């Protein structure tokens, strides 16, 4: 298809012609085009269908504020919905499709909705679909969602990479129009570290879209020259295609850089987009202003556009939206549009100016004091109907209408921290208020300075002031001469008395009538107006519609616009893909993985791993012939209890506690006493939360008078360390105690079973006495192994067997596990994983995370006497609360099935042998359960009311979720070796 509306000139590269497809048809454009400009150049005004009524829609703007021209870009797993054609850079082979249209954009069957518009007004679904009630979720809502909406997603995994990054600067300049460029030149020449970010792929802002001169040069040439200088400065970073999306605390800004969106093919290993966090000492918002439309009957027809957008398309992209373009304006900018069009050879049939005293127009007919009251054309504008100053109407043939209702400063980022804009009566617009985010200043059109001269001056002086605050001296630059036209505007929001609907929010199909309905139904607050009508929602966040909606509501309530107020501006400024938010933290890289020192060895053994927080731990080690995990786990348990097993327990938290008050400190953070623990001994310890609930258990080994090693559970390693550090710094700052984590520094293995000592004797050095006398239960020491390597040995047992934990510097962990397995060959040593570990601790009745579940106390755990009353500790007092100290409260006990073949299920609730099974008759619950290969049946531990006094009683373990109830006998939680003879052997 020919580019029938392509003009001469423009800032496009005609040497590089590009082919693209839109809605199944092929077109040509040029490098430098956007999808919207290329379509307009090809005579295509119809670009989408509206949200609710499926009305034909064309492009309204030339920027990121576009409400209408939303398309689906690319195909397959790279399909992206709701892409604004106005900012989609054209590339060779670009594929775009219209969205929210079926079967085609030109003939959309869903346009039938428009016929029923009287029934589909604001909030209609709240009123209409009231009955029957269950239908809302299953019938009505799905149908409504299907009928209305924007783009669709592919449901395929996004193949692109996204990065996150961090930048630092003295001055962040947001927007590279005349204001931003003047600021950047001023700051750049001073040597300050400057970041200049602009969402466009070509910096210069309106300078690229206007024909105004700056000094002797055109605006775009001046911008190009300024950018060339800035590019040569090492202290200036130019970031095109980068939208600053939010102003956050302490001068931190979020910015999305679109690195590859404009490329036909993704480059391997390179990100599609980068989410930057910019740490600025100062920031200047130079984001310009947005033109606003005027509402009139049928103002949504393709071809009705903002006047500034028309100038952008004509001047920058050499694409005329139509051969004949009429103007509808309330200010002098409309006249500028007419002049530009006429200069470019585009016919301007009329300038319709609501001002009776509108200035004269050269080359076009001026209809002063006139208003547009209607438009015609099925899929695109063919004419407008004008009510003249004398009351007569006249139809004017045109393919496009350039509308200008004035300008709104682009102040969104000034409000991201609850700043409120102020009303400027001269502009009839909101301007930034005094409560700006820390470090931010606003200059140029964003600050209500709407002429080019004032923009340049504001940028230059603003930069000097911002840098001066930082102690950086900047000199004034030579600002070129530029237009400085005064504001000449008559506030005018919507044309009264039109026969058809006048559209306020094109993206959400909100009309003046909808605003009136909201008012009629008492939704007059702007926040209610927004939610009732959906005005200002969705991808454009009402950038072109909010003011209009406010103005209409103000008119209805009889209040002024500033009294009516604005809704809250929130980040992001423009839509951000979820992938960009996620960055690289996707799939298995969602979180980092921690590997134990024996990980590679365990992989060699064919271990099955399980995630424990970030850790990967061996769950069990299948051997040849084992087809079910239970076979492996049972074997590991039996072999450990029969001879010896080895388990990597590096994941347990290890906290080095030193200082002359280390023992006193531990007395405070543990419920039980540690002050008198002899050097060379380990003690089991229980930590309480401040509310008296038990939260972690572990051991503390005293390596010296002033040196302990505290171990925590794997799950609570970080929490316990954090709590201890808080206690050290904030609760007990007078104590001399120093903490540091050594979890990662030491590889630690449990060696458990009757042959544990024999095995270890082959590994520890000869001068280390680990006999029962020389190294009794709960002993610890710093020793050497394997010929002189420093190591730590602890005689502690989680399994209930004779057991040790041996630790070496982590780099030797792989070698040590191999040495242990080699030394244990004669004892048929087995590695065991977390499953066998769990079975053995249940057999022994040791509490773990299931029991320390955030609701249980030391008393519940049967450890009440551990909470020493001879000293104070965190949680001590609150553990004595009445509700926590009930003598007949929950106690940890064991459970065996009455019939050995029946399972005991964790989570089952305990009920008396007979009677109702209900929450009101609940006797407790089972926390952990397993099959015990030693006992030959399923067993469990859990909490039972008055449990210590109910041994031997038969209860029912009810599992209503799975519909089963099993009779269980209450037994001691210590199924194996209740006297502890094995571990002391």
């Amino acid at each position, binding site marked *: 298809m020919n580019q029938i509306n392509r003009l001469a000139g423009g800032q496009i590269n005609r040497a590089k012609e590009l082919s693209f497809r839109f809605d199944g048809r092929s077109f040509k454009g040029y490098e430098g085009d956007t999808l919207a400009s290329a379509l307009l150049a090809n005579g295509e005004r119809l670009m989408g269908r509206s949200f609710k009524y499926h009305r034909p829609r064309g492009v309204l703007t030339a920027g990121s504020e576009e409400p209408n021209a939303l398309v689906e870009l690319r195909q397959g797993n790279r399909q992206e919905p709701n892409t604004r054609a106005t900012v989609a850079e054209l590339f060779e082979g670009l594929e775009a499709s219209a969205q929210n249209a079926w079967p085609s954009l030109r003939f959309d069957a869903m346009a039938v909705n428009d016929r029923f518009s009287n029934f589909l007004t604001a909030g209609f679904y709240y009123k209409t679909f009231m009955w029957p009630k269950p239908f809302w979720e299953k019938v009505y809502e799905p149908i409504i969602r299907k009928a209305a909406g924007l783009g669709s997603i592919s449901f395929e995994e996004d193949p692109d990479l996204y*990065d996150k990054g961090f930048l*630092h600067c003295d001055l962040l300049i947001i927007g590279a129009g005349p204001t931003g460029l003047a600021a950047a030149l001023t700051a750049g020449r001073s040597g300050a570290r400057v970041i200049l970010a602009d969402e466009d792929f070509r910096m210069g802002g309106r300078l690229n879209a206007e024909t105004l001169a700056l000094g002797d040069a055109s605006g775009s040439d001046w911008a190009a020259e300024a950018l060339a200088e800035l590019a040569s400065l090492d202290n200036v970073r130019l970031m095109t295609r980068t939208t600053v999306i939010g102003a956050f605390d302490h001068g931190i800004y979020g910015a999305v850089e679109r690195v590859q969106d404009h490329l036909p093919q993704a480059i391997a290993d*390179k990100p599609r987009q980068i989410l930057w966090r910019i*740490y600025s000492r100062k920031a200047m918002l130079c984001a310009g202003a947005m033109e606003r439309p005027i509402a009139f009957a049928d103002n949504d027809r393709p071809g009705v556009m903002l006047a500034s957008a028309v100038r952008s398309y004509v001047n920058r992209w050499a694409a005329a939206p139509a051969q004949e373009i009429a103007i509808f304006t309330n200010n002098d900018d409309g006249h500028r549009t007419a002049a530009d069009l006429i200069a470019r050879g585009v016919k301007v049939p009329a300038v319709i100016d609501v001002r009776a005293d509108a200035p004269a127009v050269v080359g076009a007919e001026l209809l002063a004091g006139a208003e547009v009251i209607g438009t015609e054309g099925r899929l695109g504008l063919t004419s407008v109907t004008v009510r003249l100053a004398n009351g007569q109407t006249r139809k004017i043939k045109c393919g496009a209408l350039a509308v200008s209702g004035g300008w709104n400063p682009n102040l969104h980022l000034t409000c991201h921290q609850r700043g409120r804009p102020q009303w400027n009566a001269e502009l009839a617009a909101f301007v930034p208020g005094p409560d700006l985010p820390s470090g931010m200043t606003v200059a140029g059109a964003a600050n209500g300075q709407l002429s080019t001269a004032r923009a340049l001056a504001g940028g230059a002086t603003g930069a000097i002031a911002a840098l001066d605050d930082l102690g950086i001296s900047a000199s004034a630059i030579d600002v070129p001469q530029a237009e400085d036209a005064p504001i000449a505007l008559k506030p005018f929001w919507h044309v009264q008395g039109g026969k058809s609907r006048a559209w306020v929010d094109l993206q959400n199909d909100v009309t003046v009538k909808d605003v009136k309905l909201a008012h009629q139904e008492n939704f007059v607050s702007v926040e209610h107006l927004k939610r009732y009508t959906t005005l200002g929602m969705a991808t454009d966040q009402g950038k072109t519609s909010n003011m209009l909606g406010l103005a209409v509501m103000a008119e209805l309530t009889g209040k002024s616009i500033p009294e009516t107020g604005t809704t809250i501006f929130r980040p992001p400024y423009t839509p951000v893909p979820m992938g960009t938010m996620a960055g690289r933290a996707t799939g298995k890289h969602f979180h980092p993985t921690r590997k134990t020192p024996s990980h590679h060895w365990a992989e060699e053994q064919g271990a099955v791993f399980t995630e424990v927080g970030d*850790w990967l731990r061996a769950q069990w080690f299948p051997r040849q012939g084992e087809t079910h995990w239970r076979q492996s786990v049972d074997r590991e348990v039996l072999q450990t209890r029969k001879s010896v097993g080895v388990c990597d327990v590096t994941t347990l938290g290890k906290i080095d506690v030193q200082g002359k008050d280390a023992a006193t400190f531990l007395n405070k953070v543990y419920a039980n006493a540690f002050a008198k623990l002899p050097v060379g001994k380990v003690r089991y310890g229980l930590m309480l939360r401040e509310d008296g609930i038990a939260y972690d258990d572990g051991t503390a080994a005293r390596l010296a008078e002033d040196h302990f090693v505290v171990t925590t559970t794997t799950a609570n390693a970080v929490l316990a360390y954090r709590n201890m550090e808080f206690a050290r710094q904030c609760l007990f700052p007078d104590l001399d105690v120093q903490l540091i984590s050594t*979890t990662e520094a030491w590889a630690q293995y449990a060696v458990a079973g009757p042959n544990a000592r024999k095995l270890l004797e082959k590994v520890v050095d000869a001068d280390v006495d680990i006999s029962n006398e020389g190294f009794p239960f709960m002993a610890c020491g710093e020793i050497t192994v*394997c010929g002189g390597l420093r190591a730590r040995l602890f005689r502690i047992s989680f399994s209930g067997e004779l057991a040790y934990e041996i630790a070496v510097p982590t*780099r030797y962990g792989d070698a040590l596990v191999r040495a242990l397995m080699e030394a244990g060959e004669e004892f048929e040593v087995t590695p065991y994983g977390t499953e066998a570990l769990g079975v053995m601790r249940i057999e022994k009745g040791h509490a773990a995370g299931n029991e320390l579940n955030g609701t249980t106390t030391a008393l519940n755990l049967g450890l009440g006497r551990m909470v020493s009353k001879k000293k104070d500790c965190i949680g001590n007092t609150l553990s004595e609360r009445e509700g926590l100290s009930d003598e007949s409260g929950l106690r940890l006990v064991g459970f065996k099935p009455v019939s050995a073949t029946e399972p005991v299920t964790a989570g089952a609730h305990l009920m008396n042998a007979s009677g109702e099974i209900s929450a009101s008759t609940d006797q407790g619950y089972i926390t952990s359960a397993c099959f015990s290969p030693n006992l030959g049946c399923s067993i469990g531990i859990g909490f039972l009311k008055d449990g210590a006094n109910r041994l031997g009683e038969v209860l029912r373990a009810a599992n209503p979720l799975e519909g089963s109830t099993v009779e269980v006998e209450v037994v001691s939680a210590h199924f194996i070796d209740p006297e502890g003879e094995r571990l002391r052997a």
Partner: protein
Amino acid sequence: MHKLKPTTALGADKPQIDQFDGLEIAERPDFALASLAARQGAEAQCAELAKAHLGFDLPAAGQGHLADPHSGFWMGADQWMISAPQASHEDLAAALKTAVGDAGSVSEQTDGWCRFDLSGPGLKAVVERLCNADLTSMALGDARRVRLEHLGCFIWCLDPGQAVAILGPRSSAASLHHALVGAALSAL
């Protein structure tokens, strides 16, 4: 001499080295580490004894010192990380404890961390995609605690703008390495 063979944090016999256009990422298992914390009330004594042993003043907040054999950086209030070549100073922690006595608490940290040295002209472009350290503001020896790949890491300036060491938790070395390589591929 003991008979256990060490492995690197990435689980190999030899350190991993990755080359990119403008950057080298080198795993460095050849440094011993020890943390030093001054005892309460003995801060001055600790600083004096440490200086006598290490040959430099314990660095102020955000700063560090690079020398042979001992180097170090500030880690927290009255807390420093000391480094020395592993081959000659495997007993770094023990020797440091002997030097500072009851004036300081010392913990062996050698294998608590993995260390990757990043060097080359592409450094800045890569680091800015990894963490919020501002390389431009970092002088020789300066160190920052940063979050990188969700991990608490240190970034230590070895050559301003040209080379840094990144110390991260050893068990997550593979994740950290993946992040470093990913950023290098992305930025260079």
